């Protein structure tokens, strides 16, 4: 089932001289893990703002083309309705957290929906459990490590049970091990709950192995859209200066030397496995 669909979507910010995204047509299946990448200023963030209705409702400007998210025509539904379907997790968790305890932060969005107390408690417990931070419930968010804070931010969005979750470079402030754990949490949400994940990311080495679909943008256009293996191996990705994972780069240089592996590896585990087959021969 298609959960996000755009046709010839073009958007210009108020006062903008040219469109920030132009003629974007894409289709995302429910329950998929999608990586959205491309050079700074390519329109990734603008596109995500369309998905949760901030564009056009908050930013104004001129939106042309078709946009359907979770069965809703975005321009016909206000932000608070879209917010129930599409959750957004920011780069820096500090910008998202503000309450005195983790539990209160996670409950905040639900309180705003006017949910009964007992149901709210259940939801909060569930969200804390899913993100592995039950033991932090009484702690103050600002006392936690960056990785823990980001999990609280994820839990507070997850508590709303959105169909789609957008993560905007969620690990750039985290150390690598913390980053890896966040990607694992995100992948579990996809696997266990069938949440559709859209990950905006520059650092592809850690995240690529989870992706079902990779979309690369440049100057407001979609230039590549497909399976990670074929995308990373394309010359366009390389020319655009996209941070192709090192495993793929190694595969490329080996190929230039006439060493043929099974395919472009999207993770170190896969690279090891493909190499093993060649080396043992």
């Amino acid at each position, binding site marked *: 089932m298609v959960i996000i669909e755009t046709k010839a979507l073009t958007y210009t910010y108020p006062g903008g001289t040219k469109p920030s995204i132009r003629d974007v047509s894409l289709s995302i299946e429910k329950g998929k893990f999608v990586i959205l990448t491309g050079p*700074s200023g390519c329109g990734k963030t603008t596109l995500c703002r369309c998905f949760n209705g901030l564009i056009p409702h908050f930013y104004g400007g001129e939106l042309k083309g078709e946009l359907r998210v979770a069965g809703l025509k975005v321009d016909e539904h206000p932000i608070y309705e879209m917010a129930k379907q599409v959750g957004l997790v920011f780069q820096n968790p500090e910008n998202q957290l503000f309450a005195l305890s983790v539990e209160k932060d996670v409950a905040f969005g639900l309180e705003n929906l006017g949910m009964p107390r007992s149901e709210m408690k259940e939801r909060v417990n569930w969200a804390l459990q899913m993100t592995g931070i039950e033991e932090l419930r009484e702690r103050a968010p600002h006392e936690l490590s960056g990785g823990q804070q980001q999990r609280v931010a994820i839990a507070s969005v997850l508590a709303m049970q959105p169909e789609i979750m957008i993560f905007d470079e969620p690990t*750039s402030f985290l150390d690598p091990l913390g980053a890896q754990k966040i990607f694992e949490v995100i992948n579990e949400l996809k696997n266990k709950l069938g949440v559709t994940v859209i990950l905006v990311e520059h650092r592809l080495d850690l995240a690529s192995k989870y992706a079902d679909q990779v979309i690369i943008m440049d100057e407001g256009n979609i230039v590549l859209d497909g399976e990670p293996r074929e995308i990373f191996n394309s010359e366009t990705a390389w020319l655009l200066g996209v941070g192709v994972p090192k495993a793929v780069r*190694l595969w490329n240089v080996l190929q230039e030397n006439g060493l043929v592996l099974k395919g472009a590896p999207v993770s170190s585990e896969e*690279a090891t496995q493909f190499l093993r087959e060649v080396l043992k021969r």
Partner: protein
Amino acid sequence: MIEVKGIYFTYPTGVEALKGVSLTIGDGEFVAVMGQNGAGKTTLVKHFNGLLKPAKGEVLVDGVSTRDVSVAKLARKVGFVFQNPDHQLFSETVEEEIAFALRNFGFDETTIEKRVTWALNLLDLTEYRKTSPFMLSGGERKRVALASILAWNPNVVILDEPTIGQDHRQKENLRQFIVQLNGQGKTVVVVTHDVEFVAECNPRVVLMTEGKVVADGEAKKILTDTTLTLTASIVPPQITQIFLGLKDLGLPFDVIDVSEARRILLDYLEGAKH
């Protein structure tokens, strides 16, 4: 030369950020300070230009204790580029931002004009000369912050998390730029947890956990030591991970670089033929 001798530092909140750190950074070295969030990396480098003074122990910059000179004077030698450029920028135009410190240091107007033009050029910011720094993108603001430091030509340049929010191409530019600075004899200290970036630069790595230095040496040695990386919440570079998975074939695993990886694999296959 920066000599750190057994320093301790505790924040007013009671957090003990440094617990006895000693190290020496020679002139012209390129050092990456790595470690998990909250390990004390930024606290340590803030001691290098006297922004913070140790509670115990001392820091000597070219033989002089940071306790005995003002930050203003130290800044002439040691430039510090903050993680968040907004903590640093405040002027109305990019040009003014870069000229500000030069004026404070008492350079004459002709020199200031020359230096500003030079720094704008160096960081590809000339077209934004008259623009407000706050109209620029995050990546561009980071470059303005860097330009304003480089303009006064410090011997030591400290960069706190320079790769955050930079796309792949900007990172590659940054890497070449650092290599160039280092080639001119500048000491460069980078605080980062970007493992792939460090693997590409291969500097000396100072690894920290919980306010202490736990390892100090070549990037190639430290990033491929899984006991160390785990202690410091770091994941080895992807190339290393691949080779760790092939250890049983008798291949080396202290590999961080794509071209070295290629050579080892091709040699192995060549050897297997004979």
